[in-house]
């Protein structure tokens, strides 16, 4: 992964300035017109900030499916359009060169990631899970009580997932008999 380069940072601001100049606006109107131009024909979608539990509203502007702007949602009564430095930087969660965009796999003892397909990964994960579960599942404890538990699998996370996804994590893990279930709220 690349290091932070100031050059990249400057390039970005340079590009924005160049674009504005080539459009031929006078400097006076630049301030007023630039933001309007960027989002003029954009589609608006609302969301909720991904950082703290403040629940601040976020509004995204997209043009033909491309993200062009992110800012605080003025209609959301929780934050009335304002965001802190993190909420204001959420544009870069999407537009970001550091994102993992492929299924990555690291074999035992290997020093490298390999790229894999989703199908391969799901098959292997299913196999490993069933193997770990089958080797450890306790149907009845020593007193004959049905317990259906495995202590050999653990689940961690995650408080950045949506409610529906978390519900599925909780349900699937318990369906498997997992009792080692934890996430960020504990720590």
């Amino acid at each position: 992964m690349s290091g932070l380069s100031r050059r990249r940072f400057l390039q970005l601001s340079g590009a924005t300035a160049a674009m504005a100049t080539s459009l031929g606006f006078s400097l006076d109107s630049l301030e007023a017109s630039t933001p309007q131009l960027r989002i003029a024909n954009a589609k608006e979608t609302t969301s909720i900030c991904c950082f703290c539990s403040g629940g601040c509203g976020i509004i995204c502007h997209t043009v033909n499916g491309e993200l062009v702007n992110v800012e605080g949602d003025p209609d959301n009564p929780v934050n009335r359009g304002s965001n802190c430095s993190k909420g204001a930087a959420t544009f870069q969660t999407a537009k970001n060169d550091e994102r993992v965009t492929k299924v990555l796999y690291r074999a035992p003892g290997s020093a490298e990631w390999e790229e894999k397909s989703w199908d391969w990964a799901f098959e292997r994960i299913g196999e490993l899970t069933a193997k770990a579960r089958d080797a450890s599942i306790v149907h009845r404890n020593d007193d004959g009580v049905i317990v259906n538990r495995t202590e050999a699998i653990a689940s961690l996370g995650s408080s950045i997932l949506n409610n529906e996804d978390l519900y599925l994590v909780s349900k699937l893990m318990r369906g498997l008999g997992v009792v080692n279930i934890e996430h960020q709220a504990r720590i």
Partner: protein
Amino acid sequence: MTNHWIDFKNTDCALIIGSNAAENHPVSFTWLMEAKVKRGAKIIHVDPRFTRTSARSDLYAPMRSGTDIPFFGGLFNYIFETGRYHHDYVLHYTNAAHIVHDDYDFQEGLFTGYDEEKRTYADRSSWAYKTDAEGKPLKDMTLQDPRCVFQMMKKHYERYDIDTVCSITGMPKEKFLQVAEMFTETASPDKTGTILYAMGQTQHTVGSQNTRALSMLQLLLGNVGRPGGGVNALRGHSNVQGSTDMACLFHIIPGYMPAPNDGDHVDLAAYNATTPKGGFWTNRPKFIASLLKAWWGDQANLDNDLGYHYLPKQKKGANHSHIALFEDMMAGKIKGLFNWGQNPVVSGPNTNHEAKALEELEWMVQLDPFENETAAFWKRPGVNPSDVKTEVFLLPVTTFLEKEGSVTHSGRLIQYRWKAIEGPGQTKQESWIIDHIARSIKSHYEGSNKPEDEPIKYLTWDYGSSDDLSIFVDAVAREINGKDLRTGKQLPGFGALQDDGTTACGNWIYSGMYTEEGNHAKRREKEDPSGLGLYLKWGYAWPLNRRIIYNRANCDPSGKPWSEDKRTIWWDETQERWVGYDVPDFAPTRSPQDPGGTDPFIMLPEGQARFFGVNSMNEGPFPEHYEPYESPVENILSKVQYNPAIRIWESNKRGEASEFPIVCSTWRVCEHWHTGAISRNLPWLAELMPALFVEMSPTLARERGISHGEIVEITSARGAIKAVAMVTERIQKLDVQGKTIEQVGLTWHFGYQGLVKGDITNILTPHVGDANTTIPEYKAFLVDVRKVK
């Protein structure tokens, strides 16, 4: 939170303790500043360090980290001595009048029933009320009986006099008195005060008792259930409330029901036999029955205990909390780990130990938008990857703008995220990935006839194709809310749940979110007739869309609001029901004269909030001061140095003050988020805050010959890290029990991955936690700081 973010605007006084709200939850200050400007509200900040929160406060008082109970105990003592409490509220809405069990006692720092060998309170039978022949608690409504809770509490905190507590906390006496005077103004029935806290309260070996103590303060002042009042945890992540509600924790199942164990809950009848005998929890059999129907559908029937045996039963007394889980991993008991998005190599306590434990795994499946330190643990500095035999999967996930679904903020408000864009490359939302993993696992059990495979074989999974996420997520949300199985209709709320298998509901507290009218989390109507910021048609707040819980307590016993300008609900004589701007947190037609009509705390059998904890806390009925696990001084309140009920793992090294004399805490900055797994990969944020630093006082810096800006080494009994020295007046040495005590603090946002890197602060923190929750003691441990030669 009992209240919510916008509600801070209604306060007359905010006490912020154990939180740097202005920097870490900036949205809170939008509303606190409004309270200040519009109502003339006062803000008090109590913290080891002067922060931007202090800068915006009317009063700042410093304290030694880890001494919150002496501070609150001192306030209780002040309140009892001055009589500055809300008398009618205390008398009617708390257990102050209850008589305590004859055998209850407190001696030399220990409550009745302690077993020293087992480090636990084995016999808690005396942590109870004295009852009459029918088992009803005895009360003294004059509050004069020496054995009533009010008098017992007064006696317990007599030892917490101002000289003693200021000596322990290091808080100057005049500051303590100013805080006491300012905040207890809110005992007046027409005023409310709020408490905002965060991990500065909870991440201690006495963390749970810290939060109990601040709740007790709010009850003495009559501040709970009221606008501008309440007990308000400023929680961390964007959906940490939702992940807690959904029970991604070992000790609960969805909706805060206890996770069953093989001693107390052997079958459904035994589980239901542990249902509390009074209060709203008496409905629990309906919640568990409906959960079982949601999870095992047609395989859950009255003739097979509604499939209760499919739920995993833990070993009775087992602890599978984060610290225990990593100890078990280290011991080789855990073979496979699903990591749905967490970075314990940076966030876990004693993290060198936790990173090493990961090497014991046979496989780890991790979902993350970035390759964080945990995903890369097998190539961390100092490790040869060929020695690490773990098979690792890093599955690329979408980030929030690319997702569909709801999140719950700290004030229990569920709001919707609509998907704005597609994720890059092969990224997928977790729902899609979980769906595919579930199907892959289930395929192994389709043909099985083994009884132990039935729970996974029969687990319902009927949400349609996750390729169409909006439909899939919608189906999951419907299941969470629940439906009537006879009519197929969505339930209107948890009041409709049944215990006979005719209703299914994935999480009872969310029932009401998605009714026949639709998904209320998506609502965006902005009506606020009260002007109090309740916005009942914006999203949906659990339970039942109540914005301030325990709101019966906002009225006096007769049903009239304590204060006319803070009316939320009230009793309407003509309609014979509770009416108003909020959803009553009370039986809608139970009049103030009815039995239980003046019992606002409906989740407790007695309906009254507890100063005296009835067998609920592991270290005793009243919060008592114990020093942190690692402390520079002796406990002067008793011979018991640290919490007598915490579990100590052998792997954990304990630092001594002779070697590590400085109190250390950890904290955050506005520009980064927790482990930095996301924020250190966002160029704007990475550039704003590029390095790890340690804050220290000018006196400490002078003593150690350290200059501002130089790299120093910080050591604890667990390890050593390097950081940039930030020498600042924001931290001052304290006078504690006749000794000069220095404190330092570190951010914990850094690691070896990401655009900006730095040492991992949690290498220093101990693998020891609170006696009830096992939350690690990140906020008070011992270190030393030295120049790097």
